[in-house]
């Protein structure tokens, strides 16, 4: 099953496919874990049952997302060996310990406390339960830190030397972890995870407000999500700009591909749209704004930024994918900002919970975070080509000694499995979030008012058995 492709291309596609799925789930679970910690803390602080209901509501979603994240992650930790053995041999001494620390400091922490966070409130009491929820949230953030250190090192390697058999030997761990692109990438990615969650939560909130604008839980989640959208999106845009400056400094060829610049010109236009053509070495049908590219990329109206032709052909990334994925990401970022500002306006006009158009827009923007995260990821990863370790280890020299048929067959197996399994998972998530966060059964039993201060843990098990 080689489909007429090389083993290298199939292995790249397999990695892209499996890591895309894997990336979606953690992007959601990083944000959700922190959201759950905040909700639980608010419940303990205010003893307002609405927060507890929201906790139990999102807890169910978190359990499904987290489970899918775990199983898709195990695949990644073995794929470095099956398809990318030469990469593992050469870069393993640097990348391996970073991933080892990720497992030791993050995965065990999450796994160890997840059971208590999900099932153990009654058994351990409020205090320890809060601690467990916080540990899960902290674990997801620690995990992001290590894996982004590893990924950033592949983009901007530092603190190594190369030994006689071609392995990267660590010389300075501090320089390896805090490599030049790491701080920028970490901030940008973690903010992206928070925004992804905010827009997903906002969509669910908007959906339930459309059905019943008085639903208290829907109001709270919608309001929290819109605060995130309004406050974090501008910060994220600044973080993204900073990461762009960093890439221009360390990976100028990637920037040239993203921008669709083939020629180096005295001033740099911004190509809004067009179709980069690597064979013709030009961006066709380009819609340009003069000088703006220099202003955005180098913060200088008259800046000249290197075009792809300034790099030897065998050291250039292919431009088409980064060009478009980058524009998708930025476009969605602008829409996120619009929604955030709109929500501030509605809040000021006191129509946040009644403006149906705002709620509809929020529903439409529900998947925006996921799409933007993937688009940004493709931009940076495809932009790193033709290297796995930028400038040092070529992708073609990273591959295992495997033939295309085997890689193709396993690729097909992964595609089929992932669509069945994760398709079902997404379906179950939709089913959970399409139910009112009120907990209808309890509503009938208890009526809409309840005493603060009682702990109705058992009564509000959202998503009870056999739904």
């Amino acid at each position, binding site marked *: 099953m080689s489909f007429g492709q090389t083993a290298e291309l199939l292995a790249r596609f397999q990695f892209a496919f499996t890591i895309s799925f894997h990336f979606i789930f953690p992007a959601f679970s990083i944000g959700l874990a922190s959201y759950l910690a905040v909700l639980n803390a608010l419940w303990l602080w205010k003893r307002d049952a609405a927060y507890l209901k929201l906790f139990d509501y999102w807890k169910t979603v978190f359990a499904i997302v987290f489970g899918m994240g775990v*199983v898709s992650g195990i695949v990644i930790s073995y794929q470095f060996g*099956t398809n990318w053995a030469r990469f593992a*041999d050469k870069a*393993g001494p640097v990348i391996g310990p970073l991933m080892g620390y990720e497992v030791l*400091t993050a995965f065990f922490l999450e796994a*160890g406390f997840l*059971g208590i966070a999900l099932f*153990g409130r009654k058994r351990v009491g409020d205090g320890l339960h809060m601690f467990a929820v916080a540990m899960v949230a902290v674990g997801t953030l620690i995990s992001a830190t290590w894996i982004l250190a590893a990924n950033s090192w592949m983009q901007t390697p530092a603190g190594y030397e190369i030994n006689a058999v071609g392995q990267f030997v660590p010389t300075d761990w501090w320089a390896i972890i805090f490599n030049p692109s790491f701080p920028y990438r970490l901030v940008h990615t973690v903010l992206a995870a928070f925004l992804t969650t905010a827009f997903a939560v906002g969509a669910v909130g908007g959906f339930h407000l459309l059905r019943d604008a008085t639903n208290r839980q829907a109001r709270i989640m919608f309001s929290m999500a819109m605060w995130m959208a309004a406050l974090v999106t501008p910060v994220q845009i600044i973080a993204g700009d900073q990461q762009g400056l960093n890439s221009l400094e360390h990976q100028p060829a990637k920037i040239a591909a993203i921008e669709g610049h083939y020629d180096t010109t005295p001033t740099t236009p911004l190509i809004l749209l067009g179709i980069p053509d690597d064979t013709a070495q030009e961006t066709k049908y380009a819609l340009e704004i003069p000088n703006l590219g220099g202003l955005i990329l180098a913060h200088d109206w008259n800046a000249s930024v290197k075009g792809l032709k300034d790099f030897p052909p065998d050291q250039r990334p292919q431009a088409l994918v980064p060009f478009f994925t980058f524009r998708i990401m930025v476009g969605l970022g602008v829409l996120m900002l619009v929604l955030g500002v709109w929500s501030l306006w509605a809040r000021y006009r006191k129509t946040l919970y009644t403006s149906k158009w705002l709620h509809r827009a929020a529903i439409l923007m529900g998947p925006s975070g996921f799409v933007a995260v993937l688009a940004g990821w493709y931009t940076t990863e495809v932009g790193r080509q033709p290297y796995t370790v930028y400038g040092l280890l070529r992708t073609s020299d990273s591959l295992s000694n495997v033939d295309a048929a085997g890689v193709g067959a396993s690729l097909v*197996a992964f595609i089929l499995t992932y669509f069945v399994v994760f398709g079902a998972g997404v379906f179950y998530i939709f089913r959970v979030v399409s139910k009112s966060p009120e907990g209808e059964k309890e509503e009938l039993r208890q009526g809409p008012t309840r005493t603060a201060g009682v702990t109705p843990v058992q009564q509000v098990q959202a998503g009870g058995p056999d739904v």
Partner: protein
Amino acid sequence: MFELSFIWAGLIAFPVLAYVVLDGFDLGIGTLFVLFRDHAERDQMMNSIAPVWDGNETWLVLGGGGLMAVFPLAYATVLPALYVPIILMLLGLIFRGVAFEFRFRTKRWRVVWDVGFAAGSAIAAFMQGIALGALVQGIKISGRAYAGGWWDWLTPFSILCGVSLVVGYALLGACWLNLKTEGELQQRARRVALYAAGGTLVLIGAVSLWTPFLNPIYFTRWFQWPTLVFSGLVPILLAACAFGLWQGLTAGKHLQPFVSALGLFVLSFAGLGISFYPYIVPGALTIREAAAPDASLGFLLVGALVLVPIILAYTGYAYWVFRGKVQPGGGYH
């Protein structure tokens, strides 16, 4: 002073053993779904492991990530050699892993996730056994890469190892049920455990008799001074565990059979360790050859020495929180 690579050989063996005994019983539970068909019983079985399975599987990630960190050459040669069984194991683990959440979310498709849980668990166990068998029988390496074919791993010996691990995990699973449940489910688990115990012992015997004839290294290891002491000791201890298992099951003890079954695994694992040393890929790569540079080994060692005890402490705490019998119908979901 000890070389870092040998310290790490011991340390990397630990997560593998931890994985085998911990995920062993919950993969076993999955396999036992074949014998326990009642819906409520299956709920109970699953709930007995729901709070801990994720932590158990994390040891597998540590084994993989750790191997890449400290023995990158072993990782880069063994995984391509075991390409097919590894991929099938991963697919099996995906199906069984999501079943924990999915089967409580649907009625119509519950049977699908039940089958996924059972088949996924059994396939993962079988493929782990095959992978082990393939490693024991040896892997062809030239230069710094795997040099064999796609199907080298598939031999009668590796299949025997695969079957052994499925049966062995089922034994662990049945003993876990005996520990965590009551009443009729527990009675049946005990009967299943007795059969599985017999099967496991016979299979351990078969694999042990076969192994020394696969490779002269094993033969000399097993029948030469001073390792002969260990190869003599291991069967005696195995017999003691077998007795503990039989006595515990027939006398209706709760914890003893599980501990004895774990003992069987620990001893078999020790036997493997004796056979492998000083190789990490038998006959092809020694521990020293495969080791990462000292800068990598030292960096991760500091973390492992500090963090693994902490991990064991809070993992132990999580087991403690969910101690005691699982009540029928009193699920966590």
